[in-house]
């Protein structure tokens, strides 16, 4: 049996603890905002926060979340930074197909929590594990700067 919170709500689970967190969220809780992209922690589409840190939920077993705070795209707007990132994403019209963007927003939010005013190089370093086939990268960079400005 493991216990954790998801977006502030307490949950417990006593099923297969090796189950990747992604499948727990999607299949057990029907929280489908977090996406499956590659299943190997190589694309970033499944990014969620574990105690504020970005993790790839496709390779994170449910057991690793025991006692922790999980935040997903559905709950990222509870915090000021998450709201600012979502607003910047909309303002600069970042999204094309949208499939990777939950992960992009989660990683960007974690970046801004750790670094209030990231440079392009900081953004590249933090975000290069989140791939976007539509290549919305120019606007991702700009939107992170925009969010940083709005939070200052």
């Amino acid at each position, binding site marked *: 049996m493991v216990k954790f919170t998801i977006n502030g709500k307490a949950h417990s689970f006593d099923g297969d603890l090796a189950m990747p967190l992604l499948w727990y969220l*999607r299949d057990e809780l*029907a929280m*489908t*905002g*977090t*996406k*499956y*992209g*590659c*299943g*190997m922690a*190589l*694309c970033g*589409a499944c990014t969620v926060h574990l105690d504020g840190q970005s993790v790839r939920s496709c390779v994170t077993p449910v057991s690793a979340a025991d006692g922790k705070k999980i935040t*997903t*795209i*559905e709950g990222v*707007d509870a915090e000021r930074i998450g709201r600012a990132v*979502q607003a910047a*994403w*909309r303002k600069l*019209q970042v*999204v*094309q*197909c*949208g*499939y*990777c*963007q*939950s992960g992009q*927003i989660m990683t960007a939010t974690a970046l801004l929590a750790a670094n209030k005013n990231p440079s*392009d190089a900081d*953004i*590249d*370093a933090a*975000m*290069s*594990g*989140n*791939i*976007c*086939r*539509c*290549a*919305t*990268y*120019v*606007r*991702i*960079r700009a939107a992170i700067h925009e969010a940083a400005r709005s939070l200052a």
Partner: protein
Amino acid sequence: MTKQTTEHRTVGQSLFHESAHLHVTGRATYTDDIPERNGTLHAAMGLSAKAHAKIKSMDLSAVKNAPGVVAVITLDDVPGDKYLGPFLHDEPVFADGETLYVGQPMFAVAATSHDLARRAAKLAKVEYEDLPAILTAQQGAEEKAYVLPPVHIARGDVEDKLATAPHRHDGDFYVGGQEQFYLEGQIAYALPGEDMDMHVYCSTQHPSEMQFMVAHALGQPVHGIKVECRRMGGGFGGKETQSWYFATVAAILARHTGKPVKLRADRDDDMMITGKRHDFRALFDVGYDDNGRILGVKFQYQLRCGFSADLSGPVGDRQIFHTDNAYYLDTFDILSIRAKTNTQSNTAFRGFGGPQGIIAIEYVIDDIARKLGKDPLEVRKANFYGKTERNVTPYQMTVEDNVIHELVGQLEESSEYQKRRAEIDAFNATSPVLKKGLSLVPVKFGISFTATQFNQAGALLHIYTDGSVLINHGGTEMGQGLNTKVAQVVAEELGVDFARVRVSATDTSKVPNTSATAASTGTDLNGKAAQDAAVKIKTVLAEFAATKYGCAADEVKFRDNQVICGDKASVPFDEFVRVAYTGRVPLWSSGFYRTPKIHYDFATLTGRPFFYFVYGAACSEVIVDTLTGENRITRSDILYDAGSSINPAIDIGQIEGGFIQGAGWLTTEELWWNKDGKLMTHAPSTYKIPAVSDCPPVLNVKLFENSNGEESIYRSKALGEPPLPLGMAVFLAIRDAIASLGEGRVAPPLNAPATAEAILNTIEIVQAEARAKQLEKVTA
């Protein structure tokens, strides 16, 4: 990023993507997010391990007995047509006695969970007997193994032109393929209904084709099959035809078990099963004058088509059609060989052969410049299509809308090409290890499906009595902003706010017999069909208003959420539609569009296959480490002709993304098959698409001031594909940097993709050649 026009209220504005509020909150529903019906089974496919082999035996007993397995099917269980395909029916649903490539589906499993299905699919015991395999396009060409007969097009006496030209050289090069790598993998969810109905949710660019293929595979009429797609998490051509494996197998298993079946491919399986952009080898022979103007050119293309025809015919044709790019070719001879290989069946990928034609001629032009010691941009200009002469394409279409001279001129200025060229030469002269390169390349891209019949579209427009509007059209949304643009068109026509218009999911039961959302035609076709539906409703409403309020029908205007009946009345739109409903006026209509002017003869490859051309140009600068082959794009400038853009923000996003995707194709994205024909780059661990860190720090994208000379939807021009070949500016800039090692006079034999490894190998060759030339000089 807004553009205001006085005559239009919503068209021309950078309105937000209609799903933006859903995208950023995780609430946008993709196929895998649809709540599963109780009892849903999950499918997985068993894939072949041999490129070409006889299947001596296939023991599936362990698969059938594995935990959770409900059904296992092979080709024998396909109730209808066992062979499918968009043109030729040459693709078996499952391997038919022999395997045709590594990764070919041989059977499928339905189990109670995704995990159990995948585990079971690994348990098959298959005995193979190897057969000779063809693993490269070159081998296919040499052995005359074709999926379709070669296509040949020529004008003038090319042998004579080559023999008498002041300069002549020949060569060959290879350009790799490209995996679509849509972040949302292939997926279908089939729900059996009453009386043989089958409802298939599918991530596909071509719901109608999926509907037809499912019907064929199930052996039943099309009207019982409904295919629906709300949106895709990327398509890029990979979901034009090749979503069929997933749609049909899910539907066959659903029919077989009577249960809903979801088939979501694992990333590796997706990459092993489905085809990619055609890689090709090109052989050329070119004759030219002292200015680098081409007098005669010969090409032979050897395309890797894979095991089946799929879309290789039209892809090969489009490569031929774009071999001219922005240049007049007076005398030419182009042979296109569609090689059959024991690999995945290559298919559509953004550009559909166009980028492959464009890179070929640009490679040759770049070579000419090196041989003559000229700046490649000068040679490009010397070959540009003329406006009133030298303006007929190899397929006998007159280029009437040529803006390439002005467009390239403007980009040359705004990118400070000449100044930077001088700076780069100076830098390279004093920098022994790091070398810079610069390239400015034009693109001309033909818009329309080459097969004329596909250039039609339908729409279905409903106005409800609260004044809200629902538009359904045959196109699919894959991130390109099609639904946003179509909603803008409808809002504009009806004179209502954008927020009143909702675009429904694409649904084969609403608009039938649709074309693929492909060939960059989505907005051109579906926008026009939606406009037609709106105009039809407006016509009826105007007649009603004239009778009701006593004005002339042609005085009635729909603007600013009002229906204005001359000086007689101005009624809010929602109130007016309620009155019209009471007056028993139909508040819905279909709409239809067929692209005018186009025609094309497949036998002679001549006609007017394209309604118009899109123009663009990119200037890229790179820096290359000549000791490691590592490189960076340091700046790119792009100018693009979107005509009168319907949504500049969406269009610029398409250009940025297409350019970077094109750069990825030609630099880091390497597909690699081992000696047994197994694709070894089948996951993001080994297949490298661009990341944010690969994007230039400076990327200036501007729209060229223009309007479409043809009457396209609001005089806009297509996006989608034409930005992709602009990425070749990066490849050619790398080539330019390498050429600096040979004082610009050696044409670097750089194949694409220009991976660090390929760059390093080419550097060694160029340096050796430069040393040999130096030695020649000394000994002379």
